[in-house]
């Protein structure tokens, strides 16, 4: 089995991206047939038409049934959302810029969808459905609930519920098609081992996801089909399996074969071919406490870590909920993996994260059931999935706009004056963003509803509505970036302009406009105190900003009658894209260059060492100021995790960080000479993974420029 797993893995790693038009054609046929019907029914029937007619793939990873495309790494296109390559996919792999233009997408398909697609390339994703319910009741249980509510509510709800029933039935039929195909394939198969594998698929697809799972294999098979079906229905990034070790606990097995099964399962998710090999950041979240304070780790937690080590693929990415009571064994294994150049698991501070959600009004049981549903965004399986439907806020852009809008710089006498100007700017900015987003949110569920996905969300079946309007909690994120650049900008303004008076505010504004034509101005700003070094001269501006932002946000929410937003700091790779659109900023950043890649120090390195960086970040009080979660990059030298005693120290450092107020931490453990060797000999380092701001990537697949950037970081640690 292990050999088979490694074959599947190598196939995924070596297969170049191509496209698959099958789903696009089937969707077109579906819309042609059902377009006159109410939108949810048209969507459900189209979904059924797609699943009934998709090519079944029992070849590339025969351990589990399910596939999104006819061939590995062939892009499953979702024309309802347009034939577009997501912006960040191009950012992360330049070769994708004209990818779809170079592919033979027939004109009639393009023409059909030109006026119909809602854009974006895919639905918002960023969700975890209630998999525990799928396993314990089966989709039939959900269909039964929908049928029992049939008479409730208005005709629209009734239609929506009907669409849910049709969609669940479509997935059950899809499983049945696989059961038939697997049985036939097993009969033809000569190899005994493979025959057993195929027969197991045939048998389990008769049971799940229609009915409750009876064992670990069936549970995993049900999850594979459901997760892939959510993508086939139309969701894009970060459709996350959530708290897998908890969900699978009733079926817990603890054998060597368990690791292999989980590895094959992870590869199946990895093979999800929406956008080919581009990372979908499907997040698996392990461990954590429940509301009564009991550690939820079980033998599957370690098995998942082992499986992650075995497959070493960037997607799905794996998080561990870190707290005082995690067993030493789990902590040690996690650090060992990080030290081995896997860049996973990422760590989430249990205490701060759950507390933040409770402060926002989430019930304790639900808050302690949070999981990651994105790069680092937070959600609750089946209950909260609003991280990607909120407004964006580029913190440093607000500062820049405020500065460039000042007409009489001499009238700004001190930082208080400046903060007042910024406050006004922020308020206008937020009001506009929130208003736009409220309108967008209202439309989301109407034009491209996803009844299958919605049926797996608590409350949506009863209410007969889409997940965009029917979930238990509605707490959209206020997604920030550029925090570090903003804080450094404020610290530099205080020191250079108002304190030491090396520069007048007018001169500084002129320098921003001319992109630091005088390099002395820039070096003065770069020399000012910086956030992330445990230096209160800079760190105090982080606190000042957060307090101001929270007050202003509250005012705007009240004025607009909008709901509570959860502040979050999420980057993925958008710091490049944001940076390109922004002029020079007072932190000394040149026009067009990237923003900081996390909420910490650039590149995850403080010249004062890792503890200084963590100390700064601890001051952020995330449960109050970042209840939607932040991402914190930390880069450490490989030597600091190379032996048992240094790994123990790393664990102690993380324990201290999370106990005293850390929310998230993602670690790259780098060695400059090894990276240089990997750049020259990629074939020897096919396993080397790195964490970029919000996703993981195989080092060998990065552009030469990105590789150089990581090597430069590692050299700083030498």
């Amino acid at each position, binding site marked *: 089995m292990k050999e088979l797993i490694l074959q599947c893995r190598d196939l995924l790693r070596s297969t170049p991206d191509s496209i698959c038009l099958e789903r696009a054609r089937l969707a077109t046929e579906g819309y042609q047939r059902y377009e006159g019907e109410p939108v949810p029914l048209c969507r459900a029937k189209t979904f059924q038409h797609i699943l009934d007619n998709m090519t079944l793939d029992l070849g590339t990873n025969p351990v589990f049934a399910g596939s999104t495309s006819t061939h590995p790494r062939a892009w499953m296109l979702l024309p309802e959302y347009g034939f577009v390559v997501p912006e960040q996919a191009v950012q992360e792999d330049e070769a994708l810029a004209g990818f779809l233009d170079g592919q033979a997408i027939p004109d009639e398909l393009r023409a059909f969808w030109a006026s119909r697609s809602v854009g974006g390339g895919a639905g918002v994703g960023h969700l975890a459905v209630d998999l525990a319910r799928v396993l314990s009741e089966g989709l039939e249980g959900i269909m039964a609930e929908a049928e029992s509510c049939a008479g409730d509510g208005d005709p629209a709800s009734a239609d929506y519920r009907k669409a849910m029933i049709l969609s669940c039935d479509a997935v059950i039929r899809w499983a049945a098609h696989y059961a038939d195909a697997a049985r036939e394939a097993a009969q033809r198969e000569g190899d005994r081992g493979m025959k057993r594998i195929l027969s197991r698929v045939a048998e389990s697809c008769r049971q799940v996801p229609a009915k409750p799972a009876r064992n670990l294999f069936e549970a995993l098979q049900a999850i594979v089909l459901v997760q892939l079906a959510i993508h086939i229905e139309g969701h894009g990034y970060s459709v996350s399996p959530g708290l897998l070790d908890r969900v699978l606990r009733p079926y817990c097995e603890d054998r060597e074969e368990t690791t292999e099964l989980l590895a094959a399962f992870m590869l199946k998710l990895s093979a999800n071919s929406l956008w080919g090999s581009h990372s979908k950041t499907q997040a698996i979240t392990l461990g954590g406490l429940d509301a009564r304070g009991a550690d939820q780790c079980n033998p599957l937690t370690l098995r998942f870590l082992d499986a992650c080590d075995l497959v070493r693929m960037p997607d799905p990415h794996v998080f561990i909920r870190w707290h005082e009571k995690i067993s030493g064994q789990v902590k040690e294994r996690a650090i060992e993996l990080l030290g081995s150049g896997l860049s996973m698991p990422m760590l989430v501070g249990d205490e701060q994260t759950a507390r933040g959600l409770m402060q926002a009004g989430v019930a304790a049981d639900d808050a302690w059931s949070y999981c990651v549903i994105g790069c680092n965004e937070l959600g609750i399986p089946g209950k909260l999935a609003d991280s990607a439907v909120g407004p964006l806020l580029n913190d440093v852009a607000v500062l820049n706009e405020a500065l460039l809008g000042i007409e009489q710089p001499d009238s700004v006498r001190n930082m208080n004056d400046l903060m007042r100007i910024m406050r006004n700017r922020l308020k206008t900015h937020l009001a506009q963003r929130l208003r736009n987003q409220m309108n967008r949110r209202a439309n989301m569920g109407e034009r491209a509803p996803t009844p299958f996905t919605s049926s797996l969300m608590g409350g949506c079946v009863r209410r007969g509505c889409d997940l965009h309007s029917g979930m238990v909690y509605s707490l959209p994120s206020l997604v920030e970036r550029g925090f570090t650049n903003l804080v450094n900008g404020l610290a530099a303004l205080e020191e250079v302009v108002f304190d030491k008076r090396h520069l007048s505010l007018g001169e500084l504004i002129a320098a921003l406009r001319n992109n630091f034509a005088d390099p002395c101005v820039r070096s003065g700003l770069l020399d000012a105190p910086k956030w992330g070094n*445990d230096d209160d001269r800079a760190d105090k501006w982080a606190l000042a900003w957060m307090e101001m932002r929270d007050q202003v946000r509250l005012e705007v929410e009240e004025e607009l009658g909008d709901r509570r937003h959860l502040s979050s700091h999420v980057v993925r790779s958008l710091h490049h894209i944001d940076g390109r659109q922004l002029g020079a900023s007072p932190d000394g950043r040149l026009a067009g260059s990237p923003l900081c890649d996390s909420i910490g120090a650039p590149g995850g390195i403080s010249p004062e060492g890792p503890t200084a960086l963590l100390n700064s970040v601890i001051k952020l009080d995330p449960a109050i100021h970042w209840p939607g979660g932040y991402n914190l990059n930390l880069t450490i030298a490989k030597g600091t995790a190379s032996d048992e005693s*240094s790994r123990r*120290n790393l664990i102690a*450092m993380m324990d*201290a960080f999370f106990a005293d107020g850390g929310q998230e931490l993602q670690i790259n453990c780098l060695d400059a000479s090894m990276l240089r060797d990997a750049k020259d000999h990629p074939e020897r380092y096919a396993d080397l993974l790195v964490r970029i701001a919000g996703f993981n990537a195989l080092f060998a697949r990065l552009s030469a420029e990105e590789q150089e950037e990581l090597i430069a970081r590692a050299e700083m640690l030498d």
Partner: protein
Amino acid sequence: MELLVNRIQRYCLHDGPGIRTTVFLQGCPIRCWWCHNPETRAKTSADARLYEVTELAPVLERDARYWARSGGGVTASGGEPLQQAAGLQALLRLLGSRGHHRAVETSGAADSGDVRRIAPHVDLWLWDVKAVSPGTYRKGTGGEVNGPLSNLSWVLKSTETPVTVRVPLIPDFNLDEVELQRIALWLKNQSRPVEAELLPGHSCGSNKGSAGSAQKSISVDSQSLEHARSLFEENGIPVLRKPSGGFA
């Protein structure tokens, strides 16, 4: 009470147990030709900063949360920390009163009175024994060996503070059968058993941080290291196996 500090380094992993903050004090009376911190040798330096002890302690304590969880603490290094005995005593006393673990990394090149003054405030000595033959020691360090050795003997005899002896392995200095044997014998003859670390000439590695180092690195092959190790062990001196370490 004041201390002249060359620099403070956080997250040090090889200067005693746990996560440590190492404070490098300015000034050293000897001149080892292999010295890895030559910037700390002069009595004063443009980079050094004078701290009131009461002002220095809170700066160090910024990492106390990490010491507490890792069994770490503060390590006074140098330079030769015992050269600033009055200030060092005040600092160690203050840190001790707040429950922190204190290590002192020394070559012992100090007045015996200063050693006696500091000793009650030390939780762990990291004691560099570079050589025991007067001629060898003088040639390599420009100093006299008797003082450092009798200071160490006194600590071993008159206190119960744990001592880790650190022997830097330096080719063309002490890396020969005769000198290593003498060091081992000298240690064996002390009033209580000690354990030793053999430092095979790495630079401070990751601990060196962004400060960088223009020093040539001295490397000792694994065969010589193994040989030195067995020589110590044959004399009943347990050798701590550490991945890497720096030497002062």
